[in-house]
């Protein structure tokens, strides 16, 4: 008997916890509100199913618990009922999957006007690279990574000379402009994760992965690593500041390009 009551309490408690829990997602700061909406739809559908199944069980346990002289029904199959349940389930599943795939289609298609920004992960820090005045990122190779060339840029690539290198410091992004994050790692797997942007993606040494988003409000956001990357994983933090256009331009002006960073070395070679 206690079990029937506890089953009801499980349902009631879970719903109340959901409604009154102070533990909820961080306020969104990107265009991916659709993801949040799909998540909410999924919460409602699955919550209804959970409540229905567990309450039905509670009723059965209460109503059909053993009493002297009681005998169970004998009903091996019920084709009609089984078919109906299958169809309803399939509809419920489709109601979650279809909107999900529509949003995913947006997620994988990067808008043409997105600016490319490179993120480079290494144990256990973040660096960034912006394409500079020519709008193009120069090529890079892990083999070239050294103390003087921390991101492994190919020195003779003309596209790379004006690239802005932000080593182990915060990235700034202008608000309201779509960005394509190109993700690269020079050692192990990492994952560029800003909870407020909702999107995230692993970084794989040897490949360049990507995702895109549009920052929708200004502010400072913490970058976390979401893929286990060794003993410093939990301490691999970074920052993204979403600026107004003015602030962004001001910040960009203070940054050094690849050519400027390598210039002293070249001068000394010339001597």
């Amino acid at each position, binding site marked *: *008997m206690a079990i029937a009551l506890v*089953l009801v309490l499980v349902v009631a408690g*879970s719903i109340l916890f959901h409604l009154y829990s102070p*533990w909820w*997602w961080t306020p969104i700061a990107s265009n991916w509100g659709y*993801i949040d909406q*799909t*998540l909410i739809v*999924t919460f409602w559908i699955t919550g209804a199913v*959970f409540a229905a*199944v*567990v309450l039905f*069980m509670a009723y*059965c*346990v209460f109503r*059909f618990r*053993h009493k002297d002289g*009681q*005998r*169970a*029904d*004998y*009903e*091996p*199959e*019920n084709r009609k009922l*089984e078919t109906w*349940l299958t169809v309803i*389930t399939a509809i419920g*599943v489709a109601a979650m*999957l279809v909107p*999900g*795939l529509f949003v995913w289609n947006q*997620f994988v298609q990067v808008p043409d006007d997105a600016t490319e920004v490179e993120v480079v992960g*290494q*144990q256990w820090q973040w660096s960034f690279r912006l394409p500079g005045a020519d709008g193009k990122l120069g090529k890079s190779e*892990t*083999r070239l990574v050294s103390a003087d060339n921390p991101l492994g840029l190919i020195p003779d690539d003309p596209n790379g000379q004006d690239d802005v290198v932000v080593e182990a410091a915060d990235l700034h992004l202008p608000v309201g402009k779509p960005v394509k994050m190109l*993700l690269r790692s*020079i*050692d*192990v*797997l990492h*994952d560029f994760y800003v*909870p407020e942007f909702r*999107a*995230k993606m692993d*970084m794989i040494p*040897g*490949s360049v992965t990507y995702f895109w988003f549009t920052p929708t409000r200004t502010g400072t*956001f*913490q970058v976390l690593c*979401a*893929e*286990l990357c*060794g*003993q*410093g*994983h*939990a301490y691999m933090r970074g920052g993204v500041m979403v600026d107004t256009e003015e602030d962004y331009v001001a910040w960009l002006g203070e940054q050094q390009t690849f050519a400027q960073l390598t210039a002293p070395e070249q001068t000394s070679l010339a001597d």
Partner: protein
Amino acid sequence: MVDVTPGAIDGIPPAEVPEMDLYHPHSWWTKYVFSQDAKVIAIQYSGTAIAIGMVALVLSWLMRLQLGFPGTFDFITPEAYYQFITMHGMIMVVYLLTALFLGGFGNYLIPLMVGARDMVFPYANMLSYWIYLLAVLVLVASFFAPGGPTGAGWTLYPPQAIMSGTPGGQQSGIILMLVSLILFVIGFTMGGLNYVVTVLQARTRGMTLMRLPLTVWGIFTATVMALLAFPALLVACIMMLFDRLLGTSFFMPAVVELGQQLQTNGGSPILFQHLFWFFGHPEVYIVALPAFGIVSDLISTHARKNIFGYRMMVWAIVGIGALSFIVWAHHMYVSGMDPYFGFFFATTTLIIAVPTAIKVYNWVLTLWRGDIHLTIPMLFALAFIVTFVNGGLTGLFLGNVVVDVPLSDTMFVVAHFHMVMGVAPITVIFGAIYHWYPKITGRMLNQALGQFHFWMTFVGAYLIFFPMHYVGLMGVPRRYSELGDMALMTESAHQLNAFISIMAFIVGFAQLVFLFNLIWSIRHGKEAGPNPWRATTLEWQTEHTPPQHGNFGKQLPIVYRWAYDYSVPGAKEDFIAQNDPGEYGSPGGHA
């Protein structure tokens, strides 16, 4: 499907194969240690699995100490924390759950339930256990190796698994882990072939496939899957071992290790993930399907009612088993693989929800108009449905690719898989132990201790893992040795973590009570008799309890009906055993 109607005993074909010769033990050693009796092997498997499971339980306490009370325990360094999570995960998934369901329950129940004298290859079956034990010992050895066990996470993703920034990566931890897994696969294959061939070839007369208890269907399908899935893990382990020891680059691209260029080149870390999850996703169902099967039989027996929709249940098990081989990359939506894969894998993943939901409906519909005896096995079966439905539904979040993006790699995932493949199958294991212990030992487990164990485990585990979803929803990543100064952590979230930790200690303590009950009841439990639950399946109809070597008496039982003739109208008793030729009931398995 050939139906054998009652009374038409002539219709049952004579045994095509002569009775198998059993190797009867001649000494204490061959009877209890190097035994070829599947029932002894089952107990050896279960004992070893539970023993190593206790290690995993202690590791989970250590993790929860760190997460609930950060900075309090100096000995839990980040290195140690990652070693704890890695070993906890690997032990629970492979060395406890897989070994206990297949090596433990599979060995004990398959021959008895299909009406066989033993597994068909008893010697290989014995070897299977000893190689498994060796695998466990190698795993345990890594705790004592220099540098300790690997801390790469149970997924062992390269490159970090074999690099120096990870505990055990450049020491012996990862090597011992890989060797242990390779041994496990070898040992499992010997047992697995046995289970499959025994079900296909050694069923007694009249035991058609569609009369098998669902327990056997679940274990059988899971074993077929394991035989197909484990080879992917085996090759992944061998390749990684080569990368680590011989300097090959299967999974290693050009990388910089803490400022030093390594000589690796051209390998693919993603390839390892595909191999791992090609094994890893079926693995979830390798654990789930035996639980599905066993819980069906627990519900049917203790509700005194036939399982609802038996044929649909069989096809759902087979269908889930097949589908589970084409969903693996839903573990890799944000791995950096081609994002267009997401469309395919999200669709297959959500399709698998349909046969799974059918199983849930049929369990609860079996309760409808039943005669529900709230025994401890039944209570655990109910707990299974609650936790499995909960964990299954959160799987719809994570399987739906775009919803997975914010949730992946957060505590939401941890809560989901603990609910669905931790708590749910383990409640079935408990229910099954309370159910079959009387057959194994001849005595009942203590009721009062069982009630205590049930309530602490069910309520406690729900209170651990339900709130944990919301920690993940906040965005808290999994596999963090320290949550401290994260911007999104609130004071109340720290308090919630402390609460979860305290519940984890309580639930863990309840398991010690269960262990005590297991040992105490061997001598002091109430005498059970041959069939205390008044069940229909063949293991309850043996001449001796516990069954002797050879399982049945002089004659193997002949089967006349399906496994679910409970409360048959007109019949005197509320159950008719499978080997009862009586006139009532519904032979062949359906009306």
